[in-house]
């Protein structure tokens, strides 16, 4: 029997971070929770091997990203972020950044094609290297580079149109700092 308690521990530890990533990919906390659930079910099905190989977290992230991308592909409609998804039940006021900035970012993210959005989120939020993003999305490194570049440019353009502000990317990532 596989150890369900270990799986539960893994869920408890990994679920919040996975959900944040999924939210940036889809712009809806409820959908993000559903994608995370789907990804974790995938992890459970392959638990013994993944655990043995020490690839639980990497596989879980990949499964969640795939679930989010696939759902977006099937809907084929660009989502617009609603107030509810950002400031729904359980949220608290954030004094670090004005809400309008976050809203503008999410609205701008929603204008990106799904793969460009994934590249931007995985590169600049997850701080994953190009090779890892390529592996996660099942595409070549060149594709990741080009999609990230185009996605970033489109994001900056959309953000500027919404906020009349500049969105910049610092040279040093969190991982490197």
């Amino acid at each position: 029997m596989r150890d369900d308690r270990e799986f539960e521990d893994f869920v408890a530890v990994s679920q919040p971070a996975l959900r944040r990533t999924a939210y940036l990919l889809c712009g809806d906390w409820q959908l993000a929770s559903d994608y995370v659930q789907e990804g974790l079910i995938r992890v459970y099905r392959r638990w013994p091997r993944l655990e043995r190989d020490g690839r639980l977290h990497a596989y879980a992230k990949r499964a969640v990203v795939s679930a989010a991308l696939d759902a977006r592909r099937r809907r084929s409609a660009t989502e617009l972020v609603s107030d509810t998804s950002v400031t729904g039940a359980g949220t608290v006021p954030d004094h670090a950044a004005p809400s309008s900035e976050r809203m503008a970012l999410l609205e701008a993210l929603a204008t990106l094609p799904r793969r460009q959005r994934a590249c931007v989120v995985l590169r600049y939020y997850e701080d994953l290297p190009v090779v890892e993003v390529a592996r996660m999305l099942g595409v070549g490194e060149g594709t990741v580079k080009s999609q990230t570049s185009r996605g970033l440019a489109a994001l900056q353009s959309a953000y500027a149109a919404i906020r009349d502000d500049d969105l910049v990317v610092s040279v040093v990532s969190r991982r490197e700092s």
Partner: protein
Amino acid sequence: MVTELRHLLEESVQHPPAEPHDTGAILRRARTRRRRHRLVAAGSALAVVAVAGIGYGVVRELTGGTGADKVAHTEPVGPVVHPAAVPVVQDQDVRVFASHVNLNVDDPFSGNGRSGNGRLYEQVTSDGRVLVSQATRRDPDDMMTEYQRFGLQDPVTGELRWLPAPPDARYADDHAPSGPGVVAVHGDTVVWLDPERAPVPIDVYDLGTRTWSHLSVDVTALNGGAGGGETYLPGVAVSGDRLYFVTETLSGPSDRGPLWSMPLDGSGPPTKVTDVGAWGIDGNTLVWTDTSSAPASRVTVRDLQTGEEHSFDPQSGDRCNQLSLSVARGVIGLGEYCGTKHGIRDDRMHVVTTDGRPLVTIQGDGLEAGGVGRGFVTATSYGYHGTPPGTYVYDLDAARLVRIADRAGNVGPNTAAGGRTLTWSVAVSTNDIKLFAGRWEGVR
């Protein structure tokens, strides 16, 4: 004004609303999904159901407690064996008649047509053919959708003939997207259903006439309508011409649930049989425990034809959680988790007769109970804390435990061809898994 992207991304996710899916619900859904490939069914004359009951909830913690009695250890009753490195004699104890290697099963983007879960040996039919399922992924961007199809492999020639898909719009070129799990092979009948759809579609295929029939069941209505919450079918079996299944709602209890029965020809509605914990069917014999995911105090055996029943205490003790149940030819296999002592798990397959006589307990750390075949039971060991890993068969006649593979893998008896066939799978390299179908000849 200038805003830094990384900082703003971080800020955007700092205050999420409450998580709607609790860990227990995810675990239960995961176990239900996984169970699809573990569903083993019953024929009318000789059969086994190796379907765990509804106990897919959280395995209760047995190591805690405040009083001394809370950590008391329950020793097995009757003979006890532990996994050991005693290899089986190939082509003597077990005769392999079909095998297949799945390559790169863990690489969803390999694009080689064998990605995803690859093939599975589901059952052996009454005429000795192997029912094969195959799951593939087609879109490198989509690792969630698997396309399944089913076929029959001739053990002599090795020829594999794919079955036509059920006549439904959701199927294409003999594949079903992420759909049904195999439930049963019974005589010339193969039954599929998809426990995650509502209402649950049930497709019945006649191997002789190569024709499909279809029916469905509204399990949500059975559980009291929408107010009953999301409903699952964690356990399914076929016996004779009837389908048996338990229903469970996420919000309901996980240690006991209603068992239903309905005719496969759709001539009548589902009727409730009884409430069960873990359960199994062998022909006309229905066996169930009073609870699952908790210590079981009673095992009940009912003759489905006469209605006669008796029950007994399995003597598992009050510290062993009941996890699974399988039954065949008067032998019951109970999968149990009996707590952790000094960091060592006490996992057991407790084997008793249908009148309650203890036959053997296979005990180990990381042991998973398999099923019961004619004259043998199976188990898998994941190899924790000195318990040797492997896939094991205990020969009831010879009273010996032998290892048919030196790694853990799915294993189950397959009784459709006489009760002595079994299928198992073993990882042969990092990404390759080999499937076997064989006949248990018995330890000489």
